[in-house]
């Protein structure tokens, strides 16, 4: 049975497990109908022109994991940034792991989507936020909505500053031969509140995984949200990440995406503005090789005056890897004095590597500052010669240059431990030991 059919037929079974009379039933039902009509996206669609899901849809995925699979902390310790003292929401094969997690309701809610969706005390919040900014039309998002049940639920009340970053990690054990998971996260950050969140998807063995994740983030007035996505998964893992961000007046939201691993990765990142003087930041570093494929599809929808957006994506492609950058800036007629900036720099290390870069600016206001720059090149030969002249061998010189190339984005990581972690991953990825921590 094809995956689409399998999903549609499992929907009934899925709904039976949960309360069919809840209001969510209607949301889910119309979502699955949308998916049923549209199916998985194909390359015929403009938005998916450069990324084909065909090959990965052929696996016989388990849509619901059959067992609860436990993992030892020691096995996965290295994937945590902080071992103690922080809030963590951890999932194993799509199911919440209370053993690995550290949730809280003390002052802030860092807990489970399933409880938020099912417990009456969250009903008002769910009614107000759940599926309110996520697309009701984009087929993969609606597929996720239809099955939305588990994920992280984070609600930071007014004026609360969360000291340490919250970690959300989805592990897959590979106990199932092939597994499809559909995490659903909801993040609500109150007025003047501040939170940092790190999200990661990690498989623990080579069995194929397909993750179709949806995250909705609501930043209230003057809220500050720094969201980091670490994508350094095994090459058997495929990830479709759909993130929707709703920003109110004077809020500041940044999303950093670090794509180093995985087979096919697609990042759909959407920012929507509802208020003035909003600041949005979208940054990414992609370093891949082999036949890896990473597609960044961004949208910043400037709908209100006096807002800023900053995009900066750096990509280094080796071997036969493929990168896609499709960055859309939409400035509505009312959004005067918009300041939108987009930069996308790409380095191709091999003749077989491909980059498809497509900046799109649609501007309907007449008093705006919008700029974009896109470069595609090889490593600077003069710089290589300079470093080799100082005695640094080719491989190390290359690594230093690639590091220098991504530096602008690395520098903007606000969590020192994470910055260190990312530079370490980069050094590992480049296969060098430079005698100092990059």
């Amino acid at each position, binding site marked *: 049975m094809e995956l689409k059919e399998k999903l549609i037929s499992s929907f009934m079974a899925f709904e039976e497990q949960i309360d069919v009379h809840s209001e969510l039933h209607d949301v889910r039902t119309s979502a699955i109908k949308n998916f049923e009509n549209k199916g998985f996206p194909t390359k015929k669609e403009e938005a998916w022109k450069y990324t084909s899901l065909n090959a990965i849809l052929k696996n016989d995925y388990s849509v619901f994991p059959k067992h609860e699979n436990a993992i030892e902390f020691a096995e996965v310790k290295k994937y945590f940034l902080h071992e103690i003292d922080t809030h963590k929401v951890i999932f194993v094969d799509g199911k919440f792991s209370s053993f690995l997690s550290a949730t809280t309701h003390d002052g802030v809610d860092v807990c489970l989507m399933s409880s938020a969706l099912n417990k009456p005390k969250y009903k008002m919040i769910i009614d107000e936020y759940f599926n309110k900014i996520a697309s009701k039309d984009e087929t993969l998002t609606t597929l996720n909505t239809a099955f939305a049940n588990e994920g992280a639920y984070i609600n930071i009340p007014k004026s609360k500053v969360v000291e340490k970053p919250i970690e959300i990690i989805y592990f897959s054990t590979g106990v199932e031969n092939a597994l499809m998971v559909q995490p659903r996260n909801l993040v609500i950050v109150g007025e003047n509140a501040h939170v940092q969140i790190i999200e990661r998807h990690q498989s623990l063995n080579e069995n194929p995984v397909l993750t179709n994740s949806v995250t909705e983030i609501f930043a209230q007035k003057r809220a500050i949200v720094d969201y980091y996505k670490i994508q350094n998964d095994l090459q058997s893992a495929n990830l479709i990440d759909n993130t929707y961000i709703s920003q109110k007046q004077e809020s500041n939201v940044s999303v950093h995406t670090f794509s180093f691993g995985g087979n096919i990765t697609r990042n759909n990142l959407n920012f929507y503005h509802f208020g003035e003087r909003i600041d949005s930041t979208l940054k990414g570093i992609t370093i891949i090789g082999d036949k890896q494929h990473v597609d960044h599809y961004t949208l910043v929808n400037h709908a209100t005056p006096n807002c800023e957006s900053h995009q900066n994506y750096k990509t280094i492609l080796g071997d036969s890897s493929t990168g896609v950058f499709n960055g859309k800036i939409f400035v509505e007629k009312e959004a005067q004095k918009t300041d939108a900036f987009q930069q996308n720099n790409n380095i191709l290390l091999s003749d077989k590597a491909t980059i498809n870069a497509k900046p799109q600016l649609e501007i309907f206001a007449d008093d705006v500052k919008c700029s974009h720059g896109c470069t595609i090149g090889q490593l*600077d*030969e*003069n*710089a290589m*010669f*300079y*470093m*080799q*002249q*100082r*005695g*640094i*061998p*080719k491989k*190390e*010189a290359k690594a*230093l*240059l690639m*590091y*220098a190339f*991504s*530096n*602008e984005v*690395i*520098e903007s990581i606000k969590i020192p431990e994470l910055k260190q972690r990312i530079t370490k991953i980069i050094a590992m990825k480049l296969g060098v030991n*430079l*005698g*100092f921590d*990059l």
Partner: protein
Amino acid sequence: MLEINNLHASVEDKGILKGINLKVNAGEVHAIMGPNGAGKSTLASIIAGNENYEVSEGEILLEGEDISELAPEERAHKGVFLSFQYPVEIPGVSVTNFMKTAINESRKANGKEEMPANEMLKLIREKSELLEIDRKFLSRSLNEGFSGGEKKRNEIFQMAMLEPKLAILDETDSGLDIDALRIVANGVNKLKSQDNAVVVITHYQRLLDYIVPDFVHVLMDGKIVKSGTKELAYELEEKGYDWIKAEMV
């Protein structure tokens, strides 16, 4: 130290060096002067191993060993240093870290242990004082946002750190004000010994007041057309290059 015999080189089939002969002994300072486009920087680049140039004929010997087939880093490990006319910016890598990497790669290639951290710090302190470089400067990204003069001073700082056998200074004086020129020249002079050699490439006599050459060569149209002592540099400053051209005819 350095012996170049009948060196011919080209870039994209365009002949740039057309039979260079040059012999530099340990303890000597040689200056190479000449008009724009004569091939001075090309010569410097080729000695250092720049792979953009095709060496079609001739040999480059360093202490009797032909280095013309070696990679740039291998030449560096044998003691060749080139101070660049246009040093490259490397964001995110501090001057200190860059030097640590360079020194330890060189030591590794020469079968030595990495330099202990305290020794490295001492060396950095000593050499930065020699070039009158502020400590804060050393933690900045290599050459990023440096002024022209800072870049050149940083080149000579690196030379001081690496202690090369053969140092080639490619237009190190360009972009330097008189104070910076004095500091840079002073640095070079202090590093000079009976065991190493310096080749200075310059347009102007000015630098040679500070770094006094034992020999001056005039490079024109890919060949060394005249050699002499430091007086030749004064003559060139005064009369330009046309009289040499006339002499050649």
